[in-house]
């Protein structure tokens, strides 16, 4: 949580810092954009049409929430709508935290923060807050956001068109690709004992409840693990 402090006390502007920020933004942006293809293909496999898939990437623009929505719809169909909406929304809460972290860095008029809000995701926040100067932080955020917004939407369309052509999902192992995609979003967050314990417990709770609850609800029930552990700070580091 050092980002807001950095924003208020940036080190004197080093001339090379914005250039470094642009390179970081392009590297991260292009790598992340590539997996829009898997989202597009999996969304169509989950029963969405190409338009619906593209609207999700244009409007929701948050990988975790988008994968969650189509994941629940894939197993429960439109009847699982409330659970799908709840899963996507709960996964979107972290973006609100990122917004709070980026708010003092972005500054400026309301319309600039409105656009910044739409582009506030894991990657733009990570690249932005990692830069040493205020100017480089802004450059890093905006370039990463722009590259991923354009790239993610183009690759989503490409993936949706390809997925539409592919047809049978299981024959090509696309159902396993969906599971691997969630694991890939989870992996970088398993940085200490507490998140690992929460991940294992949540996976077990969800799997055990599958035969007993409507599709989508086991995932929501597993969220309770995070709330209990988060409030009690079990297995966590002491607050400094």
């Amino acid at each position, binding site marked *: 949580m050092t980002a*807001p402090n950095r924003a208020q006390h940036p080190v004197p502007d080093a001339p090379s810092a914005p250039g470094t920020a642009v390179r970081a933004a392009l590297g991260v942006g292009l790598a992340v954009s590539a997996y829009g293809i898997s989202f597009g293909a999996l969304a169509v496999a989950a029963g969405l049409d190409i338009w619906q898939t593209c609207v999700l990437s244009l409007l929701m623009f948050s990988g975790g*929430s988008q994968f969650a929505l189509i994941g629940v719809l894939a197993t429960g169909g439109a009847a699982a709508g409330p659970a799908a909406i709840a899963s*996507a929304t709960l996964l979107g809460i972290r973006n609100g935290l990122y*917004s709070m972290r980026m708010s003092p860095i972005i500054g400026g008029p309301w319309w600039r923060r409105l656009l910044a809000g739409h582009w506030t995701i894991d990657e733009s926040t990570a690249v932005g807050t990692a830069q040493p100067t205020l100017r480089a932080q802004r450059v890093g955020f905006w370039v990463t956001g722009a590259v991923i917004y354009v790239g993610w939407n183009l690759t989503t369309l490409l993936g949706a068109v390809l997925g539409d052509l592919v047809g049978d999902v299981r024959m090509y192992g696309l159902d*396993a690709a969906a599971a691997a995609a969630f694991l890939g979003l989870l992996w970088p967050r398993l940085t200490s004992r507490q998140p690992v314990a929460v991940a294992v417990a949540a996976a077990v709770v969800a*799997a055990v409840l599958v035969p007993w609850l409507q599709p989508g609800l086991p995932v929501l029930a*597993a969220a309770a693990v995070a709330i209990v552990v988060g409030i009690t700070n079990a297995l966590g580091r002491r607050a400094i």
Partner: protein
Amino acid sequence: MTVWHIILIASIAVLALKLIGYAVPPSVLERPTPARVANLLTVALLAALTATQTLERSGDIVLDARVPAIVLAAVLFALRVPFILVVIAAAACAAFVRVLGWMP
């Protein structure tokens, strides 16, 4: 509720959460519990989705070709192989296991 309703409601909710962060004072971040709960919520939901996507079929738990695929994916992520390559490898693994008829 049609699929379009679901898409629009969820998209507006996710977008609203992003915008709310720019409207509240940053001091909320200084309290550790809300930040910790939000981070762990992400972990729990992604882990639960990984489990259900690997094991669920028509409202039941089944062990099929997705299981070896997710084990392969975990190994590749641990080796820091890029996301898109791991996803492709997992799909190929499941397809291969099915073609050979080892698992459904």
